[in-house]
């Protein structure tokens, strides 16, 4: 019988009741900052002694309140996220930090700020390319963020504290990567569904507590005998964000999901922040260049009149080759959220890239509700029938 206060059981409990710890810390006098997106550098938040807490939508909650503020044919994740905020689900937050990671998030941020009064609200602009001048600009945005947060809390951020926070988050990144090492076997030692629970728990805890949880999970998973069954397909899932287990469970009814590029999965943990003399340099480089979200475009060459498509594909998606090879993937699920333009625009090129690797891929689309899952199940099963 596993210890229910530790490891996977504890991760599941936090996943199911995720604001519990943040509320406790708030009651003890800590300040909690919400953030809806991976482009917010949690290192700065933590170094100034705030608790970062990822604000998510809720796939199980019908959107009602957000209808008065946002159009209906619009990113359902941001709609749900704002809906939860308007319904005061995270009423313990001292502030919210948003980014221009995509247009729906930028527009939603301004609505969010004007409909709900927080003691602190900050918006970070994020450039859409990784050119050197973009990184410089983004660093300026991070510096602005630091200044507003310093004046809100009434103390200055020391370089040493920021470096220490970067160290803690790098430790978290390396622990998550260690966890993903445990999906390389057949069957994997941990399921995609369990990983969603663990990662969502990490987004609900202070970094050091998240690291403790990860260490517990890793040692439990390494020893376990009740891991996932071996299924006929090993899948890689590419998606904007997966913050609910429903879809993962649907995929894992017929397959093992062994690796992903997803917020709610590996995306925020794939590489480390490099320690620079000015830590903001390291953070700007990491968040803009190393985070692989479709909202950022990575062209192979700048300023050429004629582009080399194969080179561009390599530059945009080359990091995925390792996932396919090392995790022994035999099928790719491209999971789109309806109205998500950045990911939809990326898809034809990404499909070309997987074709060039000789890996079958299929795309499915859902509208961030549970009702959409039945027709998707048929597509996923048919895809698995073609590859298994």
């Amino acid at each position, binding site marked *: 019988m596993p210890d229910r206060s530790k490891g996977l059981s504890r991760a599941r409990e936090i996943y199911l009741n995720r604001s519990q710890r943040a509320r406790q810390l708030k009651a003890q006098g800590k300040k909690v900052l919400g953030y809806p997106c991976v482009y917010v550098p949690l290192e700065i938040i933590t170094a100034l002694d705030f608790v970062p807490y990822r604000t998510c939508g809720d796939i199980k909650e019908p959107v009602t309140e957000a209808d008065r503020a946002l159009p209906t044919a619009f990113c359902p994740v941001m709609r749900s996220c704002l809906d939860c905020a308007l319904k005061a689900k995270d009423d313990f937050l001292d502030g919210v930090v948003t980014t221009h990671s995509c247009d729906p998030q930028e527009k939603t941020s301004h609505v969010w700020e004007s409909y709900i009064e927080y003691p602190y609200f900050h918006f970070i602009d994020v450039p859409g390319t990784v050119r050197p001048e973009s990184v410089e600009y983004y660093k300026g945005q991070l510096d602005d963020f630091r200044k507003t947060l310093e004046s809100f809390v009434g103390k200055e951020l020391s370089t040493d504290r920021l470096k220490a926070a970067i160290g803690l988050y790098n430790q978290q990144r390396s622990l998550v990567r260690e966890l993903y090492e445990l999906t390389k076997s057949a069957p994997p030692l941990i399921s995609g569904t369990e990983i969603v629970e663990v990662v969502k728990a990490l987004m609900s805890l202070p970094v050091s507590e998240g690291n403790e949880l990860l260490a517990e999970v890793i040692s439990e998973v390494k020893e376990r005998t009740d891991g996932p069954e071996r299924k006929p397909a090993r899948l890689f899932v590419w998606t904007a964000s997966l913050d609910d287990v429903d879809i993962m469970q649907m995929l894992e009814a017929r397959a093992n999901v062994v690796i992903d590029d997803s917020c709610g999965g590996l995306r925020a943990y794939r590489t480390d922040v490099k320690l620079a003399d000015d830590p903001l340099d390291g953070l700007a480089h990491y968040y803009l260049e190393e985070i692989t979200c479709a909202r950022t475009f990575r062209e192979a060459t700048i300023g050429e009149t004629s582009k080399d498509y194969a080179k561009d594909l390599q530059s945009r998606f080359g990091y995925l080759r390792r996932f396919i090879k090392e995790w022994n993937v035999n099928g790719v699920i491209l999971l789109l959220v309806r109205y998500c333009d950045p990911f939809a625009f990326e898809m034809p090129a990404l499909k070309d890239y997987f074709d060039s690797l000789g890996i079958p891929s299929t795309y499915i689309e859902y509208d961030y509700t549970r009702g959409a899952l039945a*027709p998707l199940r048929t597509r996923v099963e048919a895809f698995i*029938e073609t590859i298994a």
Partner: protein
Amino acid sequence: MHFAGVDIGSTMTKIVVIDTDGKLVSAIKGPTGPEHRRLANEVMKTALEQARLQLDDISYVVATGYGRLNVPFADRQITELTCHARGVSSLFPNVRTAIDIGGQDAKCLKINNGKLVDFVMNDKCAAGTGRFLEVVAATLGIKLEDMGAISLRSTRKVPISNFCTIFAQQEVVSHLSEGKKVEDIIAGLHDALASRVAALALRLKVEPDVVLTGGVAKNAGIVEAMKENLGGELLVPEDPLLTGAMGAALLAKELSSAAIAKGEPVPVEPRRLDKTTFFK
């Protein structure tokens, strides 16, 4: 030995029984209705009566279609995409592209040597499905099965610009009030549906032979409009509703042989023609 394929679609339930040589022994079609959880066994009984067989004579049953999980006497569930690919290939061995337009979805399958290799399906919308035609037939007060013949009388097709079923219905009403002929309106609708499905199919590379199946393929007006929109020949099976069930039956035959070769029992478990129940 006999094998059965049960295809429970959103609108129609189809059952095909074949013998050891793959020859058709019986084929049954009936409306699925809201009670398909309780009716699959009834349709199966009719199919067995027609074939003069008992359930024990059937060595393997494959269920497919939207309602495939609600067939308690099935040995295996396989998606309609794989089953259609198999069924169409048995009728047209050179098929490379199959387009199926059913009551609630439209799909395009790429087939290589009888095997499904890729597919696309429409996204959760009635446009480009049989439901679209049902809604408009009701608005026009004509029978669904008469639409094809009526549309072929058209001399001046009325363009329908809305893909959305509800808006298209409004557009139809406004054309009627302007005094447009019913046959011209229907011809326009068929073109709207066909262009929608053709656009879906063109997401995959459409290669000949191209086969059109599903209930909507019984509409001669749609077949013509699809040919126009795809710019090529189109093959239609004698009974375009049965390909999924046919494929399921053929897969049942293969699975049965594979199980016997491995020394596994066939049928997998003792079966009864019970109604599905939510309570074990």
